[in-house]
């Protein structure tokens, strides 16, 4: 709960912040728009008084309404973890600039976010599926992912071979998204 660090952040990034800087236990969280990701992260990484050299985690989050990409950064200038959340990505075509130009190690984390949520990272040289088989259509960790649709479409179909019926030749497109009450 580093108060000075919060003041410094508010002073430095007043324009890009889309919400108040929240602090809890030993984490400081700031929300920015996806467009400013490159400018904010390079500023945090390069400026000597901030000096966030370590990207400790890059995670995709689906809040049911909107998609987010969350970066966790560490630097010796502050005892807190800094969490930068790129908020407000649309659900069907979520695009975020990639941070591989700063950390080449973030390539696979972005691949995993794409594989699980369908967030495309522009600038990532190698954005393909990392866990799921390459011909997998749906994104498993999204909130509207319904296993039965997916099971119904894939040949194995979650049903033991002994009782397997003919797999549907063309899966109805509507089956992809189950209509949960809005």
């Amino acid at each position, binding site marked *: 709960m580093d108060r000075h660090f919060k003041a410094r952040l508010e002073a430095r990034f007043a324009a890009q912040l889309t919400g108040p800087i929240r602090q*809890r*236990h*030993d*984490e400081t*969280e700031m929300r920015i728009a996806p467009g400013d990701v490159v400018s904010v992260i390079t500023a945090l990484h390069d400026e000597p008084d901030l000096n966030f*050299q*370590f*990207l*400790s*985690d890059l*995670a995709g*989050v*689906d809040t049911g309404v909107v998609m987010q990409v*969350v970066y*966790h950064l*560490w630097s*010796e200038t502050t*005892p807190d*973890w800094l*969490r930068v959340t790129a908020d407000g990505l649309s659900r069907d075509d979520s695009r975020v600039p990639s941070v591989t130009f*700063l*950390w*080449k*190690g*973030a*390539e*696979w*984390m972005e691949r*995993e976010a794409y594989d*699980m949520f369908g967030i495309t990272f522009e600038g990532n*040289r*190698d*954005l*393909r*599926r*990392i*866990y*799921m*088989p*390459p*011909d997998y259509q749906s994104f*498993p*960790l999204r909130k509207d992912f319904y296993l039965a649709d997916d099971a119904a479409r894939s040949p194995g179909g979650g049903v033991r*071979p*002994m009782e*397997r019926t003919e797999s549907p030749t063309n899966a109805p497109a509507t089956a992809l998204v189950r209509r949960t009450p809005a």
Partner: protein
Amino acid sequence: MPISEAHQSTDDPRVTLDRELGVFEPVPPYPPRTEREAEFYTLGDGEMFINMGPQHPSTHGVLRVVLKLDGEKVVDLDPVLGYLHRGVEKLCENADYHQAICYTDPLEYVSSLFNEWAPVLAFEKLMDVEVPRRAEYIRVLSSELNRVASHALFLGWMALDLGGLTPILWSFIERDEIVDMLAALTGQRMLFNYFRIGGVNGDLNHEFMSRLGDWMSKATEQIESGNALLNENEIFVRRMRGLGTIDTATALRMVMTGPNLRATGVPFDIRRAHPYSVFPELEFDIPTRTEGDCLARYLLRMDEIKQSLRIIDQCLHNMPDGPVIAKLPRLLRPRPGRAYAAVEGPRGQYSTYAISDGTDQPFRMRIHDPSFIHLQSVGLMMPGHLIADTMAIMASLDPIMGGVDK
């Protein structure tokens, strides 16, 4: 002579397979979709692809690496993951907060106490729980024991991947002693399921303390003598020195953490950089080396075992009294919020990002595994070396596929 289109599968006559039975080419059937895929899957002259396939003797678990070979020299490699993917993050979203600990246990199965520590820390932050000091000390004690067991096993794997048959069994002997001790404390030998939100499952008992006592007396010299076989062995050292060197800047760019980063000279250790639990009160130092090659990583892990023994000593000496677990309601419903907790595992920083939405099931549970990051840097260190070196470099990074594939 490819067999015809549809044919009966061998293991279940009622199932018909439609794919042609033939040589499984490492090149994917669909056209390349990304720049890296196009660049990798185009063959130069005299090059060939080889599948260091999912079942290969020395890819520590189920990992497929497509090597592009020019004779014996490796030109490029592309790891293919997902063979051990159990969807732990999805499972945790459908399980309540207690069950999430069980799902994260088998992730890095060689050091599963650390897998439990990160989510437990994150949930405690979510629920603002104050953990009693005795529980913190027991957590540090048992996890440092687990770290020594994991490093001892690493020293064995390293020698096995280079062809030595004996060190792997000696290191298993050491690991078994430690694992028996932890079984006396926690009740399980490998996937302990010992940490609870707000403390630990059970207090220290006499059986554990007596075993720990006589193990501590002979621990250092036993591990030392076992490794003396390899440290000065010319063949072993010549095969390891100057292999897979990585300098500090690239290591930072590759987001590496743990022993692999400290081998390049950066003293970054979460226990000192972002102290959690009772580490500020314990005094131990962070061993670092500068060469950053396989041999440095190997020797660094041996120094870390010594440091862990020092920490265990201090934990035993100033172990406070008091309760072992905080008072918590039977059904945990943390108020909506987000928490991030990182722990220094034997392979690097292992962290969990938990989001709660007020129900008794976590809304999102993101798990970050160090081996997942280190596997990327194999592609950087590998080109130019021979096939035999892929084994040495991958063994020196010590990846655990359970954690990589989550």
